[in-house]
């Protein structure tokens, strides 16, 4: 049983946990304001808000997500908001809706609700609204009619209005200004009630499970408490004991694109809200540890990550879009095994390892480069689940850079991406890790290139020579994202880009031209 609030209505459903929230909203609840554009998270027409009760149970934080890729099971215990849930009575418009209408930001209207929801989500955000942040809120929404300028004008109107939003009790203010209906103020209490009720139910289920499966000898079906405090079992809420082979499902951003039909026909092990799978911490030994359900947005929100990688916001701006970053997990990006996974490429250069747990609870650690055996072939059994990701903390003065080029700069898959980490002392490279995506069957850790760099001078000659090594280490193919020749050239350029960022003084490009 999946239980949540949809707008102001409680929902209890036995629909498949891996079915798309979008289909539930449109075809079960007949809320037709949420539109289907692409079913792969690339257009934003189906954007809804997902509200989650904070651990203290005092308030609900809202994020925009594309409902086409949101597993219904991930709605469990949450507040799902569609446009019908923000509409004011009697045809009145919310300030977001009003701004779009007044600026001519809606033409055919099919994408419009997605923009309305993204901007409403931004209104509910705790971050101050700036011109940039408001535009960033709609970076996952594609409009084919307007050319976006009218939407930018609407966003500017909204930014100005949100300047007056108080930091305390914002929902009351937003409700008074009719950004959201008054019932929003009661949602934290409702979700807290649901949390308690679910915890009780899960405790009973746990007792039952333990009785029924006393011989199973593992804790895969155990009830756990998610960081948000609501309890749930790993298979989606305690209705049945998870079979070991049941697929793991995280944020849905890859699996619901690729395998929706198949997954919704079977039980799955939901990871997104699994206990202890979120959170980013620095351990005494100097390693940074991420829970496997850490999303790209969590990376961005983490002060620790931003202090370690100051350019992280700029890098992550190149990775998918706001709603997808709210959903997609770092571990999911690794395990999807895409040769061009942006986060994978970043973490390869950060020197990351993953911790895998099998059904007995036994764990092992695997260096990220060793995860990839071949195209979408992983050194991981179906039973094993990523529980943690870790990487060594850089020293002050270490270089890190991420580069990505795609046909469209934002919300696109890379033609080639690359990351590099470097430690330099007295002009000599002491340690190096270079990675590249889109140039082989797997996300590549460029071991030979990295090794080559060590002990050499930080100089243009070294870059040129490293490129020669790098070109022998890659095997790009021509496809829709570029020809072999382009990918080789582009990676050469990205290697140069890394070094120009690290040492613009030492690397002079004058004789390029």
């Amino acid at each position: 049983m999946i239980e949540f609030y949809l707008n102001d209505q409680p929902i209890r459903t036995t629909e498949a946990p891996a079915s798309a929230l979008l289909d539930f909203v449109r075809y079960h609840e007949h809320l037709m304001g949420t539109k289907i554009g692409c079913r792969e998270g690339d257009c934003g027409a189906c954007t809804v808000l997902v509200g989650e009760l904070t651990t203290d149970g005092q308030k609900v934080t809202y994020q925009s997500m594309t409902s086409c890729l949101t597993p219904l099971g991930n709605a469990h215990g949450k507040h799902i908001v569609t446009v019908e849930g923000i509409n004011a009575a009697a045809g009145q418009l919310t300030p977001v809706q009003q701004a779009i209408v007044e600026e001519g930001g809606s033409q055919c209207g099919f994408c419009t609700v997605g923009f309305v929801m993204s901007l409403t989500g931004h209104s509910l955000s705790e971050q101050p609204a700036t011109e940039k942040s408001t535009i960033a809120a709609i970076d996952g929404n594609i409009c084919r009619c307007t050319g976006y300028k009218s939407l930018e004008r609407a966003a500017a109107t909204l930014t100005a209005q949100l300047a007056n939003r108080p930091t305390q009790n914002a929902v009351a203010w937003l409700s008074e200004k009719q950004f959201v209906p008054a019932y929003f103020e009661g949602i934290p209490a409702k979700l807290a009630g649901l949390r308690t009720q679910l915890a009780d139910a899960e405790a009973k289920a746990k007792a039952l499970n333990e009785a029924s499966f006393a011989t199973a000898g593992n804790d895969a079906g155990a009830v756990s408490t998610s960081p948000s405090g609501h309890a749930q079992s790993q298979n989606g809420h305690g209705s049945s004991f998870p079979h070991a082979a049941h697929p793991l499902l995280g944020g849905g951003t890859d699996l619901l694109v690729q395998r929706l039909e198949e997954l919704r026909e079977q039980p799955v092990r939901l990871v997104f809200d699994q206990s202890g799978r979120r959170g980013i911490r620095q351990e005494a030994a100097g390693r940074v540890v991420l829970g496997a359900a850490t999303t790209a947005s969590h990376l961005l929100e983490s002060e620790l990550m931003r202090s370690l990688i100051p350019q992280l916001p700029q890098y992550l701006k190149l990775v998918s879009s706001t709603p997808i970053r709210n959903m997609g997990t770092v571990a999911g990006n690794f395990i999807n095994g895409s040769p061009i996974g942006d986060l994978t490429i970043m973490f390869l250069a950060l020197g990351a390892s993953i911790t895998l747990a099998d059904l007995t609870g036994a764990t092992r650690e695997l260096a990220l480069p060793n995860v990839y055996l071949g195209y979408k072939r992983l050194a991981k059994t179906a039973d094993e689940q990523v529980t943690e990701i870790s990487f060594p903390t850089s020293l002050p003065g270490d270089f890190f850079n991420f580069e990505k080029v795609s046909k469209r700069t934002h919300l696109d898959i890379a033609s080639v991406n690359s990351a590099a980490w470097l430690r330099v002392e007295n002009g000599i490279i002491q340690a190096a890790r270079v990675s590249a995506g889109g140039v082989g069957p797997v996300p590549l850790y460029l071991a030979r290139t990295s090794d080559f760099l060590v002990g050499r001078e930080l100089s243009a000659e070294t870059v040129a020579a490293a490129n020669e090594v790098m070109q022998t280490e890659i095997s790009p193919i021509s496809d829709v994202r570029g020809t072999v020749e382009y990918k080789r050239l582009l990676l050469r350029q990205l290697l140069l880009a890394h070094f120009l960022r690290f040492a613009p003084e030492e690397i002079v490009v004058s004789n390029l031209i």
Partner: protein
Amino acid sequence: MNHLDPQRHVRGESQYLDDVPTQQGTLFAAVFESPLAHGVLVNLDLSAALAAPGVVRILTADDIPGDNQIGGIVPDEPLLAHGHVHFRGQPVALVLARHEHQAHAALKLIKVDIEPLPIITDPRVAAAQGELIVPPRTFKIGDSAATWASCAHVFEGVAESGGQEHLYIETQGAYAFPTEMGGVRIISSTQGPTAVQRHTAHVLGLGMHQVEVDVTRLGGGFGGKEDQATPWGALAALGAYCTKKPVKLVLDRMADMRMTGKRHPYSSDFKIGLDKDLRIVAYEVTFFQNAGAAADLSPAVMERTLFHATNSYFVPNVTATAFSCRTNLPPNTAFRGFGGPQGMFVIESAIAKAAEELGIPACEIQRKNLLRENDLFSYRQPAEMCHAEQAWDTAAKEFDLAGTRAEVEQFNQQNKLQKKGLAVMPICFGISFTKTPMNQARALVHIYSDGSVGVSTGAVEMGQGVNTKIAHVAARTLGISVNRVKVESTNTTRVANTSPSAASATADLNGKATEMACAALRERLLRHACTEYTLNYEGLEIRDEQVLAAGVPAETDWEKLVSSAFWKRVALTENAHYATPDLHFDAATNQGHPFAYHVYGTAITTVTVDCLRGTYTVDALRIAHDFGQSFNEVIDRGQIEGGAVQGIGWMTMEEIAYNAEGRLLSNSLNSYKIPDIYAAPKVLDVHFLDTPGHPKAILRSKAVGEPPLMYGIGTYFALRDAVRAFQPRTALPFSAPMTPEKVLVSLYPEFSAAETGWNATAVGTPASIAS
């Protein structure tokens, strides 16, 4: 006044096809498509699919009761493949099942045996093999062949422009219901309700009166639903007709991309001759249009290419020839601009080529050759009320063209790894269907006895704001508030024999018909007021819902007048017919007066190229546009901004890729990119030129749908300008779109897969130590 629909759009209350409540008993359809691009259909084994859960029936060509033919211009396109398949994605069978996922699951169980035949994807190869959709056509004025010898400069070259996916966010679809009279009622997401009606009637062997098509609105069309909404409407209708159950067919995004046609790619040869003063004296061009596997609208698109082959320039000697080439790709179709952009891209390439060879800015040639009043186009229509020079000069002044150029040059001198580029793009676009008989429209206007008004026309609302414009025309003509006016759905039983909503002409044609119907009603009501209230007809008017006699309020207002007219049995309904006057065109001589008028404008584009990575941004697009007398600036500005960004997409990131087997590689939104908010120009200024408009434009407000798309062409040439600032020696083919790949490869022409490093002799080492 704002666009009326968005009030509902923002609340998610506007109903699109897939939002229509599902009737009980509805069957869901899925299309089985050809997995090969060309071949003989040997066998189709449906047995496993028929046995699959929920499957009710599978229809093939054999189930079609009428004629299996939906070709609009040329009868060369079956609804369901029979005998042969001609492209990957061609509909072969229609699965009907109780649930949508059951229909899709059953597709995988259909086995088809196709004997492969040779596949052609290149239009020049098709032309060489005589695979033409229609005979080639040539537009000719003067004698270009005799002029070359006297030219001071002659340049030749090749220009290629790619296809473009419409990417309406609402995919294609239709919902059909059997009617008690043995016909069908179809709710269709189409720009051409009459086309769906006519072809469905033909396929079902029914009279057109037995097929009703209703359209509330589209979630985007852009030409993609002009002709290509028809197969889905007809297939759903076939299902409803055969099963006597409602049938719903909605294509998922990837099926839509695989199965529907796109903007036509063109490959063209040009030759341009200039005199010593840089006047273009001769231009020859041969267009090879990639039509795909069936005619669809390709002959008309090809014709519009010829009409726009010289863009906004006067050229006294022109020979323009076009071949519509049959290839094994989905039939390409209408897309905003309808062949015009493809034609303009070639002459702009020719001018750029001349300028680059002569070492002068292209705008020197462009400005000197702009059309002037009464200059003849190659098809002999004169440029009347011509604003080409006004648009250019206004843009140059308002947006400081000279200063911008100086800034670009200065930036480029100061920066090595970043280069700016600049281009000016003038446009001239003819308004009317070039098929003269299509320039007709009707409006049916009811005044209800309470004074409210319902208007039906053939116009389809797809975001362009035509319903708002029509409501405005009705309210203004009747002298009442727009709040009293409702524009009804587009329905073939209310307004018959309509032209599609296309050619930028929808508001003109349907607006004029609305104006006529409302004017007739107004006159009838005022005549009634004369008798009823003993007033002089002269000087009688309705303004702001008040009846005024010589400016003085009479003792009646709109509501009272309407009510009194009703009780005196005055007809409160009017049906008006409008046909654009003075249009004619002889397709045998390719001469005549095909356009009601032309729209002019000029855009200045600046871009910045990251010469390290090959990426770029459009910094500014500044446009001076000839709206005439715009009566809705919000809508009209929206059309300019949206059209221009769509044009930029076509010229930059939107790259359609097929492999040699005719399989679409750019087959989803993750592999086909349209502009997102960050890709839109940082600055997009629109200056409303002070022009009088044209009497054939609705309320003198000129058609605005297609022309702005062509401003996007400037982005291609601005990028080219920037690339050449970094790498003057590059051999840069005229090939759009200018993807980051093409930019980077052009910046570093010496790099090749074999020679992967920095070649010291060619470009020097990449870097040296600054010590």
